[in-house]
């Protein structure tokens, strides 16, 4: 026989509250799922490639773009509208435009198969048709750059009035026209025939990629030189600290003259190259060759004169006496001179190296700009229709849409309208783009599922691993992910020991007193203080005060250093009171002492404590021997501004109350019987805490850490004051020594959402990125949380099992 279900009997079938509570439950769940669903839908949709539709409008213009929605489908026709992402648009700053349904002639729109979508590095994507693929002759252009040097040197000499224009010799007379014809020749692009477009674009991509690699290498070289220069400048200023201001001025002068000297030497080198080039050009012509040699000698002489002048100036700077103070001995003065001439030598070579690299970069730039694709854009709002002979296109089977025709080697696209009888054609706007600006291109109306999926994953990979482009409107958020993670980890490393130790003291060591209760209530309340308050404090205290102190010592933050003798007295007094306090605390004390003695003892201890605290503050804040660690960078702040270190400190401070409160709760949950058992075994307090209390309280402590980590990952308000910026070029933790850069500003996902979503003039363009970033942030927090919850339950399983 089947037993009646017990469950049925306890179901409160007649209880009205089941409906009330159930209703609330359903509403809450619905809201939560709506929230998650909304974000999930928008973020998953964000990178999905859409087709590009072309609309013909009643005023005779065209508009192409990705359809982002139809509005008011239930309304009368004239109130309906379409949201269209038109991409690159010369007429609007908004990337999504709304179009009245009335103004459109053809619904549904046309989806031409040959439309190409080009994602660009620094602008909105373009939707269009390829009309030309061309290549500039970059070797000719490089030649032009070399050739031009000669003319510009002559012209600058003439402009200065050193040489008269009428004295030009035969070569100099024909130089401008020769150069002009060369430029004309070089600017003529080589068009690639249509059949070879695909192949050519692939080739271009390869060349451009290689070129960009070379450019990166050169840029790295440049930044290396920059570092070298600033390092030697710093070295100079460090050396100068023991001397006077005039020495610093001399150093700056030396750098300026060294730069000019480097430039002059480079100019001589360039003119020689230019002269060689021209000589090759006019090899056969004897008279011209002779006059080339003549003018080369003249210009070189001028330049050399200039160089010699600068060199003399540099030598005078090293030898001058303005910075020599009367107290200097001959030896130290000579040493300083030696140092200065060394410095001048390094600076000169660094600057000329810098100029050389810059020349190389200019050449690479020419190559980069040589490869072009011409697109016919499909947003032709400003283009007037040009009625041409329609019989030309009679053979085309296109009724409405784009028809193409060959004009010479390239293609011409025209629009055949559906609104008028027969066919009307429009000329469409053209736009040249550089291959090096192209991130990727695809044919949106030809893409199959597989292609779309590939593109989708490509975009997500760029989103997760790439750097932001177009001020964060496109590209990736990797720096923000990295910044968030690094900051959160640093914050946890800082807050956990402080919070846990403070809680241990409060719960295990401190005696119950009024003072402790006040502290506890305060800490509980601090957990609820608005985070922006911590941000303001962090900026004022960490960044400006402590950061300023680190940068430039006590004077920088307005503290007068103590005289050395009083500082020594104060620091010894502080030291003694700290040692005395430590001795009094650590020496074994009997529990059974006379009350009067205890009271006196307390009073004395309190005095010692105050001395120790105030003393240590003064000893550090008014130290007379500390000039700051980064005085040579001043007035540019190193730590005296918002940066990773202070952001982590501020967040650690913000989460400290949470950690203390949760840890204290966890500690208080440890049964007294366990602790007694441990004491009875002869364990000391600390042994009991370490071996019993902490392991037992670990789940609770980890809860505190979860809360603080989730807070650190999600908080925005204080961070924007203490070091988070919308776009950071450097990562806070990278492979460059010293790996962790505490003084760098960084990006943060939460702030990225804020700055993209609210600080951006074009919210429509930012929306996909905002949603994708939101979902990423939520995922990170979910992963952190669930990882910690899993850890906690694992520990729980280990720790607790059935008691009886």
């Amino acid at each position: 026989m089947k037993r009646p279900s017990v469950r049925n009997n306890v179901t409160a079938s007649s209880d009205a509250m089941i409906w009330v509570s159930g209703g609330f439950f359903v509403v809450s769940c619905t809201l939560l799922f709506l929230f998650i669903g909304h974000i999930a839908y928008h973020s998953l949709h964000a990178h999905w490639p859409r087709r590009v539709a072309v609309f013909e409008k009643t005023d005779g213009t065209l508009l192409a773009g990705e359809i982002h929605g139809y509005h008011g489908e239930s309304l009368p026709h004239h109130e309906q509208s379409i949201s269209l992402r038109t991409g690159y648009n010369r007429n609007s700053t908004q990337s999504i435009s709304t179009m009245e349904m009335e103004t459109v002639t053809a619904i549904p729109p046309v989806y031409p198969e040959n439309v190409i979508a080009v994602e660009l590095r620094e602008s909105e994507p373009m939707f269009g048709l390829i009309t030309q693929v061309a290549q500039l002759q970059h070797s000719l252009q490089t030649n032009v750059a070399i050739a031009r040097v000669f003319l510009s040197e002559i012209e600058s000499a003439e402009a200065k009035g050193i040489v008269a224009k009428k004295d030009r010799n035969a070569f100099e007379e024909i130089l401008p026209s020769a150069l002009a014809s060369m430029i004309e020749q070089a600017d003529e692009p080589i068009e690639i025939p249509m059949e070879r477009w695909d192949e050519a674009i692939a080739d271009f991509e390869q060349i451009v990629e290689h070129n960009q690699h070379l450019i990166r290498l050169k840029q790295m070289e440049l930044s290396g030189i920059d570092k070298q220069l600033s390092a030697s400048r710093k070295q100079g200023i460090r050396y100068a600290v023991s001397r006077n201001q005039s020495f610093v001025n001399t150093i700056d002068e030396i750098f300026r003259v060294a730069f000019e000297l480097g430039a002059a030497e480079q100019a001589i080198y360039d003119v020689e190259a230019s002269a060689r080039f021209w000589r090759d050009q006019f090899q056969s012509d004897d008279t011209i060759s002779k006059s080339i040699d003549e003018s080369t000698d003249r210009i070189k002489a001028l330049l050399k004169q200039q160089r010699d002048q600068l060199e003399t100036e540099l030598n005078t700077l090293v030898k001058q006496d303005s910075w020599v103070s009367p107290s200097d001995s001959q030896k130290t003065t000579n040493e300083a001179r030696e140092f200065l001439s060394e410095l001048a030598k390094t600076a000169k070579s660094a600057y000329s190296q810098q100029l050389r690299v810059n020349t190389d970069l200019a050449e690479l730039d020419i190559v980069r700009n040589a490869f072009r694709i011409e697109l016919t854009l499909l947003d032709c709002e400003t283009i007037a229709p040009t009625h041409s002979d329609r019989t030309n296109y009679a053979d085309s089977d296109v009724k409405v849409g784009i028809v193409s025709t060959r004009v010479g080697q390239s293609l011409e696209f025209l629009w055949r309208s559906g609104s008028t009888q027969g066919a009307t054609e429009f000329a469409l706007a053209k736009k040249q783009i550089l291959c090096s600006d192209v991130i990727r291109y695809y044919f949106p109306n030809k893409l199959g599922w597989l292609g779309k999926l590939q593109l989708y994953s490509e975009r997500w990979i760029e989103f997760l691993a790439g750097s932001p482009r177009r001020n964060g409107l496109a590209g990736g958020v990797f720096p923000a992910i990295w910044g968030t993670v690094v900051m959160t980890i640093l914050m946890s490393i800082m807050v956990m020991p402080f919070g846990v130790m403070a809680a241990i003291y409060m719960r295990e060591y401190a005696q119950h007193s009024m003072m402790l209760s006040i502290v506890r209530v305060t800490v509980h309340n601090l957990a609820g203080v608005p985070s922006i308050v911590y941000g303001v404090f962090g900026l004022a205290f960490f960044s400006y005060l402590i950061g300023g102190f680190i940068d430039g010592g006590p004077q920088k933050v307005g503290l007068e250093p103590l005289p050395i003798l009083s500082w020594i007295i104060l620091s010894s007094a502080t030291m003694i009171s700290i040692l005395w306090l430590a001795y009094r605390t650590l020496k074994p004390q009997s529990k059974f002492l006379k009350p009067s003695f205890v009271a006196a003892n307390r009073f004395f201890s309190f005095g010692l404590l105050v001395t120790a605290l105030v003393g240590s503050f003064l000893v550090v804040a008014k130290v007379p021997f500390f000039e700051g660690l980064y005085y040579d960078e001043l007035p540019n702040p190193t730590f005296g501004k918002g940066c990773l270190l202070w952001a982590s400190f501020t967040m650690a401070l913000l989460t400290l109350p949470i950690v203390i409160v949760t840890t204290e709760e966890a500690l208080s949950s440890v049964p007294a019987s366990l602790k007694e058992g441990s004491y009875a075994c002869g364990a000391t307090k600390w042994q009991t805490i370490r071996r019993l209390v902490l392991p037992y309280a670990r789940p609770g402590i980890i809860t505190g850490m979860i809360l603080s980590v989730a807070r650190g990952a999600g908080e925005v308000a204080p961070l924007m004051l203490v070091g988070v910026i919308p776009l950071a070029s450097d990562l806070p933790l990278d492979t460059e020594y010293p790996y962790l850069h505490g003084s760098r500003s960084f990006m943060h996902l939460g702030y990225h959402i804020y700055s993209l979503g609210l600080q951006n003039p074009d919210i429509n363009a930012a929306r996909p990125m905002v949603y994708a970033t939101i979902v990423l942030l939520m995922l990170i927090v979910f992963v952190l949380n669930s990882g910690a919850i899993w850890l906690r339950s694992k520990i729980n399983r280990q720790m607790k099992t059935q008691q009886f």
Partner: protein
Amino acid sequence: MDRVKLISSGRMVPAETHEALLENEFVLSIENFSLWYGSKQVLHQISMGIPSGKVTALIGPSGCGKSTLLRSVNRMNDLVESVDVEGEMELRGESIYNSSINVIELRKRMGMVFQKPNPFPMSIFENVVYPLRIDGESHKGRLMEACERALREAALWDEVKDRLSESGLKLSGGQQQRLCIARAIVSSPEILLLDEPCSALDPIATGKVEDLIERLKGEYSILIVTHNMQQASRISDYTAFLYLGHLLEYGPTSTIFTRPRLRETEDYITGRFG
């Protein structure tokens, strides 16, 4: 009931200590020991000696101070704030309440088992060797040896030898209490303090623990607090009867339970009051 009345009115009464006790050598001697919680006096000038190698039971009605007396022996009362003591206790001639004594070292010479089993949230092995660990012993072999010896002495070895790495909390109540006893005896204490060790256990587990106490007798000096008269009579050699913080009668268990000298003792034992 004159003594009861005297005590109730705040007077001192002399303890009735049997002469048979004097034959023994004492591991612990208590002299005129008084204890206050704040202003409330809980122990009144208690003087007694705990014989070496014997089981001594402390009996008395609830609140008579027997647990407090036990906890005073290893100075567990220090953990309670506002405790004051007077008088003397000596462990093998060494003063317990001397201000120069190291309490931690003192507690290491004693073992204590509590009313409720309190195994630590760690493995059985770690539970047993805890006192050695905090003493700085980390040699795996020596720890293992000590663990096995203690568990064998606590009659738990056969039950747990295959699962030493399991949590001590997974054991049954009786096993947990024997685990706590093993923990208390692993460092060979000079005296074993048992604070109502069976009060939270079922009869079968109680029987096992009592058997264990019988077996430990002779090797260890045991001071046990119990509210269970039968238990006291079964396992102890000597019994002390405490009433409202006063020691009333102290003598060999057989005498106390058959021919008590005081009427109060007899009344309590026979259940007429308490």
